[in-house]
């Protein structure tokens, strides 16, 4: 099986801290991987490196065999954990924007997802609530037929009913040709979606494996395992 992402000893240091201290991770095609850890563990840093907006201090990361750059950005669909949507846009403008810049954008899928998420095409981004903005971001990201989806806290700041919808959208969007890496600290809600999980702490992977196998071995849920690893 091919690996869509291979990271070898990725390090990221800043003047006063080491955000990542040698991360080794592989993500195979068709797998959904959970990158789990508390705030400050380095998970967002790692995702940003994979997305190409942060550059590692040491180590190598290859996405579809290439270093992060223009090509990888065209096959990676990244959902950051902040408000990056342009405020002057309406929902339909944002859709058009993605369509214009990403050749793998599926407008039909986008329209379906918008309806599913109860988003009105003509609303302005400014007028949306936090939860609706999250749903819109996710719609845009999932409407691309990317090879790798990078979702940073897709459930953050969203009420439980919206969470179900988001999880549903993620699952129904799954394709054997693409992979996902998802970070979250709401492990309980999302653990059934993971094929594999990797626990990250202090910039290093402290445990990784197949979710079902870990359940069998440890006789606990991934959520409980998370609590145990990070107590």
């Amino acid at each position, binding site marked *: 099986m091919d690996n869509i992402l291979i990271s070898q000893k990725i390090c990221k240091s800043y003047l006063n801290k080491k955000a990542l201290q040698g991360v080794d991770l592989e993500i195979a095609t068709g797998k959904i991987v959970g990158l789990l850890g508390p705030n400050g563990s380095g998970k967002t840093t790692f995702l*940003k490196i994979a997305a190409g907006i942060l550059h590692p201090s040491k180590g190598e990361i290859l996405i579809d065999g290439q270093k992060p750059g*223009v*090509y990888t*950005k065209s096959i990676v669909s990244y959902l950051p954990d902040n*408000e990056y949507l*342009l405020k*002057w846009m309406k929902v339909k403008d944002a859709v058009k924007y993605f369509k214009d*810049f*990403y050749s793998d954008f599926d407008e039909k899928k986008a329209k379906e997802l918008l309806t599913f998420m109860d988003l009105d095409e003509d609303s302005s981004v400014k007028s949306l609530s936090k939860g609706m903005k999250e749903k819109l971001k996710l719609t845009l990201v999932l409407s691309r037929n990317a090879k790798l989806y990078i979702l940073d806290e897709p459930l953050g700041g969203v009420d439980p009913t919206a969470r179900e919808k988001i999880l549903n959208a993620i699952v129904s969007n799954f394709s054997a040709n693409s992979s996902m890496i998802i970070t979250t600290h709401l492990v309980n809600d999302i653990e059934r979606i993971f094929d594999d999980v990797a626990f990250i702490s202090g910039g290093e992977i402290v445990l990784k494996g197949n979710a079902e196998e870990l359940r069998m071995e440890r006789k606990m849920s991934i959520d409980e395992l998370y609590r145990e690893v990070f107590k």
Partner: protein
Amino acid sequence: MFKLIKYELRANFLKIIGICVIVIIANLFLMTKKGSWELAVPALSSILLFVAVTVIFTSSLNIMSKYLYEDSGYLLFTLPQSGVSILSSRLITALIQISIVAGVSSLMFYLNVTEEISSLFFKNIKPGLVIYNIFNYICLVIYGLTIIYFCMVIGKVALKGKKLGKLGSFIIFVILVIALGWVSVKITTLLPQNFDLSTFKINSNEVIINSDFTISAGKYEFNIAQSILDIITFAGLFMSTSYLIDKKLDLS
């Protein structure tokens, strides 16, 4: 690249219209006061021109600053666009925006200065001179913005933190401008050969003091060495900035 330009223009569309409308209305108001305020009218109009251009120029810098330091950069820098494409579109968009505002303000200023639109004015314009001036203007804007954008990007890449980054950019800008100026003086005194576009001859002119584009009474010439220096510097700064955006830019 063109798509980027399209979206950037759309993003600031209202701002441009707003500035132009304010300038037009203010100038129309001044026109009504031509009789009573006399000389104050063209003076104020020119101030309006200056302010409008400053505002739009500052806005062009602000947009870049927001890309580098704020969330809007996430959308831009995750697009599958090269550094060259991003920088070019930013420069071209800024040029278009500045030109629109400058054009409208200049026109209004002109209308406020003259008594009537004289057809003589249009008859006496030398097309060559106009093209040369426009070309100069474009080069000036693009070159100037490139220098500033270079300093902004390098400040962001080299220094951590918003305040430090911006301060660093400013300091680098000052140093760079002084350095370029110094080199410019040295080169033009060393190689004072000018190229005269009206006669297509090379003149030697000892009296050049840091002038990129010398225009005097219909004669248009420029210092050859200076121009080569400018082209090389521009190319270098442009490529460096693109490279930094591609390979070194870290968004916080």
